[in-house]
């Protein structure tokens, strides 16, 4: 087996937060002992609601935030400390795109110059080569040189996200982290950008970590999917298979909550209770207060992510019942 391009093992991240002006500081476990790996050329999708820790995970993977525990290895080497030469070299190979393209762009610069910027920073190629590369990148994201001369304000949301994508691709990265890249876009534009990402991934052999709350978009782009709940992975598996036969009660609720046109809702699982709050993580299985199947054991013991079959891992006492018990006893 080849080594994966990205290997994340047991990373955790805790924030100290003060509630209100006079409140006591509390610990917020944003990410708690997360492990996964992405083989070269594959896309891992991370699905989760707000508070699941999916964005924190993305930032830790890029080394923008150090994990409190655990390690992130990129192409066999640990992520270097931010600001060092090794880190810069690694960062040229790992790029990111976020939800808000306008916030990621400088409003006072023509967008072509912003695509060019990483080439200037990493000192790649001659002036003519850089110009040619910008032209090529604009075309790669289905835009032309005319778009390149415009300012971000004169482009539509979808076009801006393409510019951000072109800039991310400028240094020919191997690895791309996308955090909700299409969530702010209208449906028809969203489809354009999703298609573009799929095409580019196939053509450039990109490895991607794709973070989104939108199950449909994640499935469209990812080969593997991890479902996160309150800082942990609760289910992991093959994208198509996971959404077709979700095993974890939370995944089941997520899938059933995703409305489908052409079908009236019959037997939708509606979770009771409030959205998860990372500052007040329930004991045992963090999902148990909202789970309709929860037992006494779920309240007490944290379920471990366990392989159900070679394709699927689930962290639920009820799904992995018997073997988990013997494991815990051991």
């Amino acid at each position, binding site marked *: 087996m080849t080594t994966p391009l990205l290997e994340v093992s047991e990373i955790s991240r805790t924030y100290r937060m003060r509630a209100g002006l006079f409140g006591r500081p509390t610990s917020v476990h944003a990410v708690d002992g997360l492990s996964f790996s992405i083989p070269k050329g594959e896309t891992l999708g991370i699905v989760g609601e707000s508070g699941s820790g999916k964005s924190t995970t993305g930032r830790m993977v890029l080394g923008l935030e150090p994990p409190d525990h655990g390690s992130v290895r990129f192409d066999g080497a640990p992520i270097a400390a931010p600001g060092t030469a090794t880190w810069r070299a690694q960062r040229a190979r790992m790029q990111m795109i976020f939800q808000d393209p306008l916030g990621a762009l400088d409003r006072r610069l023509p967008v072509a110059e912003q695509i060019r910027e990483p080439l200037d920073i990493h000192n790649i190629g001659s002036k003519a080569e850089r110009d040619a590369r910008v032209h090529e990148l604009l075309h790669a994201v289905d835009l032309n040189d005319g778009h390149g001369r415009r300012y971000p304000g004169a482009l539509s949301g979808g076009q801006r996200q393409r510019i951000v994508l072109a800039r991310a691709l400028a240094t020919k990265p191997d690895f791309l982290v996308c955090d909700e890249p299409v969530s702010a876009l209208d*449906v028809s534009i969203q*489809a354009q950008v999703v*298609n573009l990402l799929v095409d580019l991934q196939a053509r450039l052999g990109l490895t991607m970590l794709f973070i989104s709350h939108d199950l449909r978009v994640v499935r469209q782009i990812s080969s593997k999917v991890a479902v996160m709940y309150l800082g942990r992975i609760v289910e992991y598996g093959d994208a198509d298979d996971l959404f077709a036969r979700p095993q974890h009660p939370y995944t089941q609720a997520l899938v059933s909550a995703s409305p489908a046109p052409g*079908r009236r809702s019959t037997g939708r699982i509606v979770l009771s209770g409030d959205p998860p709050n990372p500052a007040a993580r329930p004991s045992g299985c963090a999902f148990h207060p909202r789970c309709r199947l929860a037992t006494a054991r779920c309240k007490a013991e944290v379920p471990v992510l366990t392989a159900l079959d070679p394709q699927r891992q689930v962290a639920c006492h009820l799904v992995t019942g018997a073997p988990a018990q013997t494991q815990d006893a051991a």
Partner: protein
Amino acid sequence: MAPLVSISGLQVAFDGTQVLHGIDLDIAKGEAVGLVGESGSGKSVTWLAALGLLPAKAKVAGSATLDGRELIGADGKVLDQVRGRRIAMIFQDPASALNPVLTIRRQLCESLGLHRGLRGEAARVEALRLLDLVGIPDANRRLSAYPHEFSGGQVQRIMIAMALAGQPDLLIADEPTTALDATIQAQILDLLAAVRREFNMAMVLISHDLGVVAENCDRVCVMYAGRIVERAPATRLFDDPWHPYAQGLIGALPPLDGARRRLQAIPGTVPDPRALPSGCAFAPRCAHVGDGCHARVPPLAPVELDRAVACLRPQRLPVELAAE
């Protein structure tokens, strides 16, 4: 049966830019109608205009009647009797939709005082009942809390409770779940369906999400650039859309099961309302555009008993896509 609300030829312009180009829409008592479209399609503006909630600089023409009574250009006093009492409205961003410096009790009791004449203890008891009804736990204690002390889903429940305070005949829900997480969205949609059944209330559900509208509405209107381009029963629209834009919207939605297919992206972007293309506004993005399309705006014409399409060349989808 006469419709509850009847909108006809409704037009809106901001600073000389026409954003709504004549909307015709009837809402019957107790029915759920969905309005789908992308940002700028005019789905919210339609109802803000009908209820007189647009800023003064907006020029509104046409007609919107409630039980035969004209609302457009009506006196403020008349509208205050309609808003909240006959037609209630809830909005997208729960975090900013409630007044941050007033308690939940003040805001709920305000509606109860205006529309039901309840004051003091009577209003408090009714406010508690409403909070209970929409599923706010520990309502008695939380009545004196401020909006920021609630989560987004809870605030939307409070908004619904406030809307129910006037016992309205029609609830306009403007993107009520867009800002919420998936599992919370399911809760809110469930709640809306339950209160609708209980009070036999009509609902207009405005959303960019086809799935949300399909699952919760009887009829759907698809809007594009300030016009309704297709009107159909919900199930039929999604099984068999006729307008190329409606087809495009459905094709653009990634499937959650079955084989993966390339998304059918609509090329280009929504036109700027200041520079609409001549003729059909969708023509420049349309795969089936023909000679006549640029010449005139196609009217919303009936194609079957209960559906209408504004297209000169309506297309039926090939079977395999339609079945999706």
